[in-house]
């Protein structure tokens, strides 16, 4: 069970690393937000799942933390995207224009 937990945490760390590299490489605020929210949500949930596999007695607190992350992370990203759009930023490569 410990090995499964470590594997989950390792995959979560890979997701975090992909998110960080994408945050540097992407050309635009909106694309950076896209990378920075989805990949980190998945990474955090995988880390919490791995911790739940390693220490099963902490399951209640970890589930609470997972629900909290799952509720607030898209919300804060949506608030930042709305504010950026109201500030007048546009996409750098707009395919629909």
């Amino acid at each position, binding site marked *: 069970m410990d090995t499964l937990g470590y594997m989950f945490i390792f995959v979560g760390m890979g997701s975090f*690393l992909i998110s960080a590299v994408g945050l540097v490489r992407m050309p635009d605020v909106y694309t950076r937000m896209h990378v920075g929210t989805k990949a980190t949500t998945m990474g955090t949930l995988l880390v919490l799942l791995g911790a739940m596999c390693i220490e099963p007695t902490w399951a209640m607190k970890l589930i609470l933390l997972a629900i909290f992350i799952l509720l607030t992370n898209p919300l804060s990203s949506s608030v930042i995207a709305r*504010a950026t759009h109201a500030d007048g930023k546009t996409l750098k490569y707009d395919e629909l224009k």
Partner: protein
Amino acid sequence: MFELLTSLLILSMLITLYRFLKGPTLADRVVAFDVLNIMGVSLLVLLALYYERSLYLDIALVFGLIGFLGSTIFGRYIEKGI
């Protein structure tokens, strides 16, 4: 094993910190701040596993709450000003 995982996480945080310091606009910095908060929550979970104390999970919950409030307040500041 924990050393390897923690060093991977700290590498990601350093790459994100580069965007936080360099980012051309305020919105870039706020996005990097949000990502740093989420990574800090997982770092606290890893610390709780390393020291085998469940007290760090409460700290992670409060840290996530404060970070969410910070991102939301910065978004409101970008949109409407003070």
